């Protein structure tokens, strides 16, 4: 829609940040996922954002790719674990909770920023339409 373009552009920003929050929640929920040492550990999820336009004039952002981190993981000595190998090791994913919380904070704030744009743009459009009511 050509008239209310700002809303669509902000919606794309909301979408990307929502997906980022999805990725972070996936990472956090799997932070204690244990795998046997002969398999890959849970691989951290990353969201790769990219500008839509590159000169086309449409504007906005989109998720170009969802990347995966290394499956190498951390070797933890837990001989009592049912998945432990013969030396007593299991694999934990190599995810830092501090990093994830920081990303979550950034994603949440960016989401709110986009919502603020939607709100202000709506107010601006409404103010413009009030001109016609006089």
């Amino acid at each position, binding site marked *: *829609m050509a008239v*209310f373009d700002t809303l*669509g552009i*902000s919606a794309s920003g909301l979408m990307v940040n929502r997906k980022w929050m999805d990725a972070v929640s996936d990472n956090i929920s799997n932070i204690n996922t244990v795998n046997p040492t002969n398999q890959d550990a849970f691989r951290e999820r990353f969201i790769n954002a990219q500008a839509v336009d590159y000169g086309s004039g449409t504007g906005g952002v989109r998720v170009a790719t969802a990347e995966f981190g290394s499956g190498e993981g951390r070797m933890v000595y837990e001989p009592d674990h049912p998945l432990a190998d013969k030396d007593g090791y299991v694999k934990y994913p190599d995810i830092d909770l501090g990093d994830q919380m920081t990303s979550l904070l950034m994603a949440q704030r960016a989401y709110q920023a986009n919502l603020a744009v*939607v709100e202000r743009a709506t107010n601006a459009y*409404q103010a413009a339409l009030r001109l*016609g*009511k006089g």
Partner: protein
Amino acid sequence: MTSPLSGILPVGIGAITGVAGAQTGVPQAQNADGFASVLASSFDQLQSAQKTSDTLATQAATGDLKDVHDYMIASNEASLATEMVVTIKNKAVEAFNEIMRMPV
């Protein structure tokens, strides 16, 4: 007697050519983004905005909605588009009434 008849005939021909000119003039006005086409395009926009909003409302009701903000923005957009079309319509009616009130 001949002079009034000869006076009438040119008027008739003039009127006919005038109508023909008006008929060819109407599509030209539409091509050149006249008020009618502006109104029609804003109605199209309103329809598409409301359709999107309706689809998302159905998805929200059935639990298929992926993004909450998508529905909120679509309904916001539909409401803005409605407001815009209503404003344009009111202005058009106002202009028409103004012309009708013109003393002749």
